């Protein structure tokens, strides 16, 4: 029985991650078409969740939870991903998936994509929401702090502060190609090298 539930949970997680990945991959094309694509994919992800044996997720009043055995099956990164979707994605009365109005959709999508590409051994961040609605991750320990904010235009803005040395690093990385259609692996690799090394210093 427990194994069945774990398998169901894993299957649902796969659907969730797949839906989030689809959402993230098509989120950057600009214009009305891209917004429709994003909504369609978010709807798809949420529809799958809502129609599973457990109830749907989000702040629209429905709850969706894994038991402890299921949670242990998932990595900390996966659990954090689930927490983010549960916190900021909801299904309204018309069965349409929506993102928390306080955050930018494209920013949130980019952040999910970044999280999914993080190595499993890296410390899990907390989240933060900028005054302009951009979604960000924060790694904040006694050693220092690193913040990565994802803009709607496809920029990853980052800043870090090493408390021991007083060193501060900051900059921005473009995560789109010139056509603004896909997230380039090269740019992600560059971001990985810079951002992850900063994170490892404070965690």
């Amino acid at each position, binding site marked *: 029985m427990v194994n069945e539930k774990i398998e169901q949970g894993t299957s649902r997680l796969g659907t969730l991650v797949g839906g989030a990945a689809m959402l993230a991959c098509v989120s950057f094309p600009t214009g009305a078409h891209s917004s429709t694509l994003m909504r369609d994919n978010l709807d798809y992800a949420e529809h799958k969740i809502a129609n599973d044996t457990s109830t749907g997720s989000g*702040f629209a009043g429905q709850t969706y939870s894994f038991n402890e055995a299921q949670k242990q099956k998932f990595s900390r990164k996966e659990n954090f991903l689930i927490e983010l979707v549960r*916190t900021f994605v909801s299904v309204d009365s018309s069965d349409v998936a929506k993102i928390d109005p*306080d955050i930018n959709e494209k920013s949130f999508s980019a952040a999910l994509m970044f999280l999914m590409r993080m190595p499993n051994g890296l410390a899990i961040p*907390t*989240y*933060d*929401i*900028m*005054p*302009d609605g*951009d979604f*960000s991750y*924060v790694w*904040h320990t006694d050693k*220092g*702090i*690193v*913040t990565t*904010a994802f*803009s709607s235009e496809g*920029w990853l*803005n*980052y*800043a*870090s*502060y090493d*408390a021991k040395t007083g060193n*501060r690093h*900051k*900059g*921005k990385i473009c995560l789109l190609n010139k056509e603004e259609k896909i997230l380039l692996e090269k740019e992600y690799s560059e971001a990985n090298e810079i951002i992850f090394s900063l994170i490892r210093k404070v965690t």
Partner: protein
Amino acid sequence: MKLFSLLLEKLLNFIGLYNSQISPIETIGENCSISSALEKNPSCDPEGASSSGVTSLPDIVSDDERIARVIHGGSSLKSIKKLYNPSTNKIKPSRFMDDRNPRELSVNRISTLTIDESHALGVAFVDDLNSKSGGNVTYHGYGELTVKICLEAGCTEVIKDDVAGTKPYHANILYPKKEVFEELDIANVLAFHALFVKHSK
């Protein structure tokens, strides 16, 4: 007598026994506290200090002054997590960011106040906010910093802004609008150094 007081003040300041920047001579009233003001003590009303003729804090906000950034928002766990990490009590960098130009971070000058009095300022601010907007914002506490930290982080200045004497403890941290990553950098340093003094209800 006045000359003697002035000479004594200068002598004590010279030998480090007296901080003339935060002079008790210049505090609001005598034996006057925010808490007693909130108890509607008619003889003690920091909010009306200007009208009663009571001296306010020094015009210049010195580098060693302690300032408090009010942390307020919703009361749900989701709302709290947007303000600070409830597991570690570390304030989120966004609490030290602004969208005006130049950027303005509203703070209270708390060097002369106790923790309870500092909290009372925050409670009064949130109550005022709720009464004007009809909202239900919760006061969670404040993030304590020094002016020196703000300047080292990259802020331009911290200036007194007592709103025509109605808010004698109020000041603003100022810095110009910059690139997002530069503002993140400032917010990071402020968030790291801020001591979160949580309000116990």
